[in-house]
């Protein structure tokens, strides 16, 4: 167990393992996302209340899921880095921030585009939307802090602390549609009860969510690999790799 943990912290080991995983994950996630997109856009039936604008759900919900999952990834990596000073955790902390920021941005922008035909407004200062905007600022804060020190390790420490403090926002996002009166519809998929969506509409959504999770793994690996090459460029194995 400890040996595995030790290996996990080694950039070289991560680089090798990700080399063999990336093609599989990449192909699988691309296949899922393409299938779900075609299904969701052209084959799923129309929502009788919202019309065709509901088709935005197939990218809005997965990117919102990943905005939150990305925050866990970043915060956990931050904690591991602060406690054990693990190299790979520092790298994941740093690369997870911009990826998460893009995911949150996508959730916000597709939400705004969906809001216009459905609520008649691009933006409302509603609890769910506002807490997602706070999440976006938290991500940007981590990106900014990580890059604002001359010494990279100080930047990573500050970024890790901000990431951990920011986790208070996560339960607020989840509960926002229950705690406050909200225009935002409650969760479509729940673990505890049947989903409030027809199976014909649900399938593409589930495929897209799985596809997005796999894509997230691909993105973390791609960004981490670029970061590894940059940091380890003086080591022999990178010099060999460059030849």
């Amino acid at each position, binding site marked *: 167990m400890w040996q595995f943990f030790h290996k996990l912290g080694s950039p070289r080991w991560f680089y090798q393992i990700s080399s063999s995983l990336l093609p599989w994950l990449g192909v699988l996630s691309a296949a899922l996302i393409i299938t779900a*997109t075609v299904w969701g856009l052209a084959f799923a039936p129309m929502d009788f209340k919202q019309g065709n604008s509901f088709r935005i759900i197939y990218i809005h919900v997965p990117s919102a899921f990943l905005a939150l999952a990305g925050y866990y990834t970043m915060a956990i990596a931050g904690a591991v880095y602060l406690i054990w000073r693990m190299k790979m955790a520092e790298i994941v902390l740093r690369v997870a921030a911009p990826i998460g920021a893009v995911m949150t941005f996508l959730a916000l922008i597709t939400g705004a585009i969906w809001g216009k035909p459905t609520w008649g407004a691009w933006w409302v200062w509603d609890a769910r939307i506002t807490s997602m905007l706070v999440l976006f600022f938290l991500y940007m804060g981590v990106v900014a802090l990580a890059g604002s020190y001359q010494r990279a390790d100080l930047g990573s420490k500050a970024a890790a602390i901000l990431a951990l403090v920011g986790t208070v926002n996560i339960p607020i996002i989840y509960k926002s549609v229950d705690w406050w009166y909200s225009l935002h519809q409650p969760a479509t998929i729940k673990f505890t009860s049947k989903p409030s969506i027809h199976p014909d509409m649900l399938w593409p959504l589930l495929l897209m969510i799985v596809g997005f999770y796999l894509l997230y793994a691909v993105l973390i690996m791609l960004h981490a690999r670029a970061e590894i090459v940059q940091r380890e460029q003086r080591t022999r194995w990178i010099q060999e790799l460059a030849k």
Partner: protein
Amino acid sequence: MYFDSIGDLIHMAGHGVFVWSSYGITFLALLALIIYPLRKKQKLLKAIKQRSLFEQENVQHESKT
């Protein structure tokens, strides 16, 4: 297909602009997230290779003189 024609699919009874623009923005952003680290890594590896060649030449040069 749910729609009667390709035209219907594009127009989506007036909601086409909203639906297609959200998908367009999402796919562009995801593509950028994939391409950026790949290009960054490629550039780095190229620079590292050139540097090591340069250093090798220097070493050879010094050993001759």
